[in-house]
C-alpha cells in the first residue's frame, strides 16, 4: 500500500527536477505514469517497516533477560546478578531486568519476544571487529565494506528511482550498515538539520538544475546526482516530520530524542522502510548495574512511548523493532562489579504482528561454555534472513550472499 499520495508527489516534483526520478521511457509522460513507477517500486517493499536498535559496547544480555531459574546464573554473579524476586517475570525461568517495566508490559500484550544465544562462529570480542561483522553480515574472517541494510537498499532501489531515505540512520555519521554497493541510505540526527541543504538557495539551485550530461566527467555527474537525490530526500523527510508530531513522552536522553524523530517520521507518513539507531554505553567492565540499568531504563521507556504512538496511529502492526548488541558478556562477573567481553547474546523483537512472543528458544547453556562464554545456537544472519524475507519481502540471499536457515518469529 502506497504511503505516499499523489498530492505528495506533485509537491515534491514541484521542488525537484522531475526528470531525475523518472526513467527515460517514462519521461515526458503524464502523472499517471509516475504513479505506475511508484507502484513498480513499492511492489518491492510491502508497507512494513523495521527499526534496528543497536546497543553499542557489548550489552550484558544475561542481566537484561535474566535466566533467574538457572543456578549457574546466580552462582556466577554473586553481586552483579539480579535477584530472582526482583525480576519482571516472563515465565518460570526468565525475567526482565526490573527497570524494564515498559518492555515487560509490551510482553504482556504479546508484543515482545526474545531470542537467546545469537552469535556467529569464531566470535570476535573486539568492539570494532564484531560490530563490523554484525553490520556487514560477514563471516568472522571476511572484510566486507558494505552493510546489510545498504545491500537491501541496492536490492530494492533502481538507479533511476533512488530514494536513499528508505534506509535512515538517526545519527550524524553513517555506519557501514546502511552503505550498499551502489546505494547508501541517509544518516541524519534530525531531518531538520538537512535544512543546511534545503535552506541554501545556491545548493538547491545546483540540485534542481541537475540533468545528466554525457560529456560531463562521470564523477561530476555522480556528485550532482547524489546532491539531487539528497535534496529530494531531505525535502521529503523535513516535510514528513511536520505532519503529525508524536504525542508520547520520550526519555530525556539522546536516544529518546532519536526515537522521537523516528516516531515523528512514521506518524508523518514517511515511506522509510528501515530505521537504524544506536544506544551507546554498554561496555560495563566495572560498576555494571547502575550503568546498564540506566540505559535499559531509557530503552524501555523509549520503547513504551514508541509503541504507544504507533498503536494510536494504527501503525504498530506494520512495525518490527529488532534490538541487538555486537556481543554479550561473560557469564562470570569480574573483580570490579562488572563483566567482560563475551560472545553470543540475546536479540529482542517488538511489534504488533509478532508470530510468537516471549522467549523464542532454549535458554543459553551456562554449564557448557566456550572458555567462559556462551556458545551461540542461532547465527545472526538467520535473524537477518528471517526479517528480510518474512517481514520485508526481500530475497535474503541477494543481501546476505548465501542462504541461511529461517526462523519463525515473524
Amino acid at each position, binding site marked *: 500500500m502506497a504511503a505516499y499520495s499523489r498530492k505528495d508527489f506533485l509537491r515534491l516534483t514541484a521542488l525537484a527536477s522531475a526528470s531525475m526520478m523518472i526513467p527515460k521511457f517514462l519521461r515526458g509522460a503524464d502523472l499517471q505514469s509516475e504513479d505506475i513507477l511508484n507502484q513498480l517500486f513499492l511492489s518491492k517493499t510491502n508497507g512494513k517497516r523495521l527499526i534496528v536498535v543497536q546497543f553499542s559496547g557489548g550489552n550484558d544480555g544475561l542481566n537484561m533477560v535474566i535466566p533467574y531459574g538457572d543456578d549457574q546464573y546466580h552462582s556466577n554473579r554473586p553481586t552483579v546478578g539480579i535477584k530472582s524476586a526482583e525480576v519482571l517475570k516472563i515465565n518460570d525461568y526468565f525475567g526482565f531486568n526490573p527497570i524494564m517495566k515498559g518492555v515487560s508490559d509490551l510482553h504482556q500484550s504479546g508484543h515482545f519476544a526474545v531470542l537467546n544465544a545469537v552469535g556467529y562462529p569464531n566470535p570476535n570480542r573486539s568492539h570494532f571487529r564484531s560490530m563490523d561483522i554484525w553490520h556487514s553480515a560477514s563471516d568472522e574472517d571476511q572484510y566486507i565494506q558494505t552493510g546489510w541494510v545498504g545491500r537491501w537498499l541496492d536490492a530494492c532501489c533502481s538507479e533511476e528511482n533512488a530514494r536513499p531515505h528508505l534506509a535512515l540512520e538517526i545519527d550524524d*555519521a*553513517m555506519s557501514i550498515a546502511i*552503505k550498499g554497493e551502489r546505494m547508501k541510505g541517509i544518516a*541524519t540526527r534530525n531531518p531538520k538539520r538537512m535544512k*543546511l541543504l534545503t535552506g541554501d538557495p*545556491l*545548493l538547491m539551485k545546483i540540485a534542481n538544475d541537475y540533468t545528466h550530461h554525457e560529456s560531463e566527467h562521470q564523477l*561530476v555527474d555522480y556528485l550532482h546526482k*547524489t546532491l539531487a537525490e539528497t535534496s529530494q530526500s531531505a525535502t521529503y523527510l523535513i516535510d514528513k516530520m511536520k505532519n503529525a508530531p508524536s504525542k508520547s513522552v520520550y526519555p530525556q536522553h539522546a536516544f529518546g530524542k532519536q526515537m522521537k524523530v523516528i516516531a515523528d517520521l512514521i506518524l508523518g507518513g514517511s515511506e522509510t522502510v528501515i530505521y537504524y539507531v544506536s544506544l551507546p554505553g554498554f*561496555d560495563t567492565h566495572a560498576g555494571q548495574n547502575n550503568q546498564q540499568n540506566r540505559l535499559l531504563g531509557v530503552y524501555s521507556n523509549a520503547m513504551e512511548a514508541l509503541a504507544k504512538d504507533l498503536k494510536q496511529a494504527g501503525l504498530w502492526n506494520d512495525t518490527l523493532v529488532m534490538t541487538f548488541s555486537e556481543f554479550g558478556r561473560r557469564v562470570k562477573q569480574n573483580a570490579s562489579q562488572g563483566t567482560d567481553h563475551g560472545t553470543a547474546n540475546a536479540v529482542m523483537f517488538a511489534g504488533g504482528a509478532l508470530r510468537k512472543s516471549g522467549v523464542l528458544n532454549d535458554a543459553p547453556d551456562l554449564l557448557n561454555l566456550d572458555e567462559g562464554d556462551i556458545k551461540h545456537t542461532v547465527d545472526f544472519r538467520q535473524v537477518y534472513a528471517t526479517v528480510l524475507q518474512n517481514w520485508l519481502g526481500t530475497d535474503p540471499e541477494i543481501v546476505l550472499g548465501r542462504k541461511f536457515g529461517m526462523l519463525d518469529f515473524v
Partner: protein
Amino acid sequence: MSQVESVTIFNYQTPNVKSENGSKMERATRISGRRRISASLSYNRQKIFMVLYLEVFSHKQTGTMSNQGGFLNHLLQRAAFGVTPELENRFARIERAQVVDELFRDSSVIQDLLYLPKPDTNDKGEVGPVKTLLLVIKSQKEKDELNLAWIDRMAVAKAALREKMTLFWHNHFATGTPFAWLMQVQHNTLRKHALGNFGDMLHDISRDPAMIAWLNNQQNKKNAPNENFAREVMELFTLGEGNGYTENDIKEAARAFTGWSVNQKGEYEFNAKQHDDGFKTVFGQTGNYNGNDIIDMLLAKRQTAVYVCRKIYRTFVNNEVNENRVEELASRFFSSKYDIEDLMRTIFNSEWFYAPENVGSIIVSPVELIVKYKKLCKIELEDEQMLALQHVLGQTLFSPPNVAGWKGGKSWIDSNSLIQRLHMPKSVLDAGTARLYRKPAFEEKDKPQKKKDKEERVKIKSDWTDMVKHMKQIPEDKITAECLRFLLVSDTSHINISELEKEVDKSNKERQIITTLCAVMQFPEFQLM
C-alpha cells in the same frame, strides 16, 4: 578473558604532565610554534609575489587540459595538498619536469612527527583489566591529539608529497589500535619509508608493535595468534584477495610468523620459545621458513607490485583504474625492486597523467579536504569539532574502520557527508555552525544529558589574508573567473555563473574575493581533484 586483557600491556604513563591543562598547554605551544614559522614564510613570499603577479595572472593556460589551470593545479592536487598562492608563485614560470623535481626535493628530508612523549615503562607487574580500560580510554584521548597534530603538520609541511604518501600508506597498512604511542611509532615508520622501498617498509611494518597489537586485537584467536596476520599480509598488504595464495599457504605462513611479538615496553621482540621452526610448505616450496622468508617470497611475486600499483593508481591518478597503465607501472615497480620514489616520479612525469580523463577524476578524501581548508583560509575549530568533522565526513586518522582501510572514491560520498562538504564554505563564512556529534567510543560511559535542547553552535575561525592578497590586483569583473581557475580542476562550463554571483557580497574587494571563493567551494566540482 576479555579482549582488553589479552593484549600484551606495558605500563604507560605520560611523564611531566600532571593535569589536563598541562597537556593542553604543551600542545598549544607546539602548534603556535608551527604557526609562527608559517607566518614568517608568507611574509617573505609577499615580496616575490608582487614581482611575479602580472606574469602569473597573464600566463595563458590552455593545452590539453579541460580547465584553464595548465598542469600545475592538477599536479599540486595530487602530489601535494592543492594549490596555494605561495606554490603558484613559486612554480609560476617553471617547467613541469622541474616542478616535479622540486616537489621530490621538498620531501627529501624525513621529519618524524614526535608529538606524544615516550611513556614511562615498567617491566614489573601486570595491569589489571580496569586499569587497562582506563589506559585505553586515556590513549584514545592521546590518539585524538596525535590526529590533530598530524592534520596541523599536513597543513604546513614543506614535504607535502611525503605527507601524502604517509597518508596513503596509513590506509594501506590500516591500523587503528587504541594505544596512541604505538600508533605514533608506526606512523613514523610509514613516513620513513613513504618514498623509499616498499620491501623495507613491509619488513618493518610486519614487526611493528601497533600492527602486531592491532591484529591480535582484531582476531583474538587463542591458538594461532598470527594466522590473521599471515592472511592480512597476503590479502590486504601484498597479493590482494584471491591472487595466488591458498588457505594452506596462510596456515603454513602463520607458523613462520610465530614468536613475532611485542614486549612489555611496547617494542618488537622475537620470542624464540614461541617460534615454530619446523619445515613449512608455502607457495609450493618447503623449508624451515621464518617470517622474513615469507615476506621475501611475497615480494618475489610480481602480483605484489600489481596490487600496490593499482592502489596507488586509484589514489593518485584516477578513482577508475586503467589496468594497462597499472601493468606498465607494476613492471617498473617490480624490476626496480619496489622503489616507491621511482614509481611516483614515473607517474608524475608521464604524459597520460595529465590527460583530461585523469583531471578531476578523484574525490577529495575527508582529511585532504580539511587540509585544503586549512591551507586556503587557515580554519580553526575546537579540537572536539575537528574530530567530529572527520567522523561525519567518514575518515578519522588513526581509526580506520578495519584493517582493509578506507574504501575511498565514491564511498566518501553519502547524503550526510555531501551536505557537510557543501555546507562547509557557508559555515566558514558564518564563522560558525551547528555542533557535530561523534558516536562515542565503545568504551565510553553514558553521559548525563543537559536539560537545554537547543542546537548548539560552535565557532569557526578563518583567515583569508593570503587569498585576498593573491587576488587583490584582479579587476572586479574577473574575480569569479580567477576563483574558478584557482579552486577547480574540473571542466567549469556547466557551472551556473549567475547563480554563483548571487552569493557574492560586493560591498568591498575583500568581501567580494572571500564570498566568491566560498561560493565556488559550494559547487560539487570542488570535491574533485
